[in-house]
């Protein structure tokens, strides 16, 4: 994984990463992105959600299923899920 990092990452950092990613991908102002809004409501179709999952994989060095952004369909749920995976590996920062 090209950008995989080994230092711990916090749930809040993941949320911020999601906001930054979505703002760029969907051309939305970051301050207008609601953490509890469904990804589909923000305009993320399944192809775009696959791109986001892949980018998260690269960033965090995790292996993720293509459908994780469908099963955890907003920033809050997605970040919480990724944090739980990192915690299992002892890589979640408080």
């Amino acid at each position, binding site marked *: 994984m*090209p950008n995989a990092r080994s230092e711990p990452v916090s749930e809040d950092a993941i949320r911020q990463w999601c906001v930054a990613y979505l703002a760029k991908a*969907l051309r939305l102002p970051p301050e207008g992105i609601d953490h509890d*809004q*469904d990804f*589909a*409501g*923000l*305009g*993320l*179709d*399944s*192809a*775009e959600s*696959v*791109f986001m*999952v*892949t980018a998260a994989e690269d960033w965090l060095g995790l*292996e993720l299923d*293509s*459908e994780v952004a*469908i099963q955890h369909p907003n920033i809050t749920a997605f970040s919480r899920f990724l944090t739980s995976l990192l915690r299992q590996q002892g890589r979640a920062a408080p």
Partner: protein
Amino acid sequence: MDDALFGRPLASMAELLAIRADQAPDAPAFTWLPEREGEPVALTFAQTRQRAHAVATELLRHAAPGDRALLLFPSGLDCVVAFLACLAAGVVAVPMMVPRRVTARDSSAAILTDCEPTVILTSPDLLESRPDLADRFRADNIAWLTVDATRDTHSEPPAHVPAGSDIALLQYTSGSTSTPKGVVVSHDNILANVEMIRRQMGHPARATNVNWVPLYHDMGLMMGVMQPLYLGGHSILMAPAAFMRRPLNWLRAIHKYRAATSGAPNFAYDLCASRAHQEAVGDLDLSSWTLALNGAEPVNAATIERFTNAFAPYGFAPGAMYPGYGLAEATLQVTGGLRGALPVARSVSRDGLRRGRADPPRDQADSQITISSGQAAPGCRMAIVDPDTGARVPPLIVGEIWVGGPHVAQGYWRKPEVTAETFAARIPTEETEPWLRTGDLGFLDGDGALFLTSRIKDLIIIRGMNHYPQDIERTAQDSHPAMRRDCGAAFSITEQDGTERLVIVQEVERTRRQDLDVDAIARTVREAVTTAHDIAVHAIVFIRPASLPKTTSGKIQRGKVRLLWQQEELDVIGSA
């Protein structure tokens, strides 16, 4: 030795499979590349025949020749075996996209009702991972059969041998979600088109092909299964999701297997070019790739340039890029270029195109680069006609593309009226066989090269998938009470980089105009459209009641709405 087969009369691709299995039993026929770790899974020609025959025999215990079998598979060897089993048994194959978990509104239920299958073929893995599918397609009189391509079984050829004129498959790529149309493709249609494709594309015998385009899509099925089998070549198959996740893995597969051919819709080339700028490409040699088919959505000049520039350093030959045009109603291929030649580009006047003429541009700002989709394939008739009168138009005048030949399908399944309208067109004063009306618009240059311009039916094509504006408009209107019924327009726009994006223009109810929360309603509409149709909404524009352009008979003028939107002349209340 193989060449003697090409053009020889055959009854079906199943007969061809049997011949291939006799000729080269141990040569690799289909290889599946798993997305992550794990070794590729391969079937030889002999194994492919044996497993297809075993499934065909099993199939004929539950279905009679001519009955329909729904193919419910993710891409993979199980799907290939199931499809070839249907061909061998003379049971009509109905490939279908596996419905997404979250979607309630898709075409699957309507397809089931329309084709009345006797059997549903699926894979053991899918049935286990998606228990909701059994509920979704529950019916008393449908048998479920699972197909495991890796299971070693012995079998004799099925007792029934289909005739060339029998129906091989129904391709449900046309029609809206609520009224899907199944294109009736015969064994003869497939055989005619694979030979046309071979001659036009100049495929060498046993050419290796890499394909990730979904196998329920006409392009994936023909290029990933039928064409390699016809050529006796090795077909390397990947999951569409594997491509979407790691686009460059497509090119790595071409490198690894020294593939000569591989094709995809335009967006895929664009995606690869972007990735090449973002990540390390690594060790990649694309010099074996002599035909890169670019079809199933509009071909963009900027994409071709970007892709070629990005991958020329890795051995990609500019002449390998091969734009083509086709549609399921003609099995697949209608036009294509000359193998190895550079794509033909033409600069035309934007203004002229709006008036249906391919004039030279006045100046730089008026210039639009169009890429030719090539000439009619050998044995294919093509005419550009005035869609209202059916009379031929001269070169450089835009008209509807009409097509004839042995690859033109038999019609739409159990839809005699639409079949007559679409498949039995006549050019006045000409005594020829009937023509297929494609609904696509384009012009020819002096050399008979086709340039596509737009679609009559307002079809929206995003990432190679067809969407009907009526379906999207209905979803948007159903999502919120402030949306006026039948008073919206969905259309696509092409951005500078060639990306197609969806725009929705929608009238708002008079009574709701005062307290309108534009952002909240826009979110609701976006969510509904993305969930139901899996397309991102680029822009939503709410306009004043009764301001949407319609014809005197009440039809929505989507082309005019698009123009007004581009010129910012709509009566806008709010947009997001």
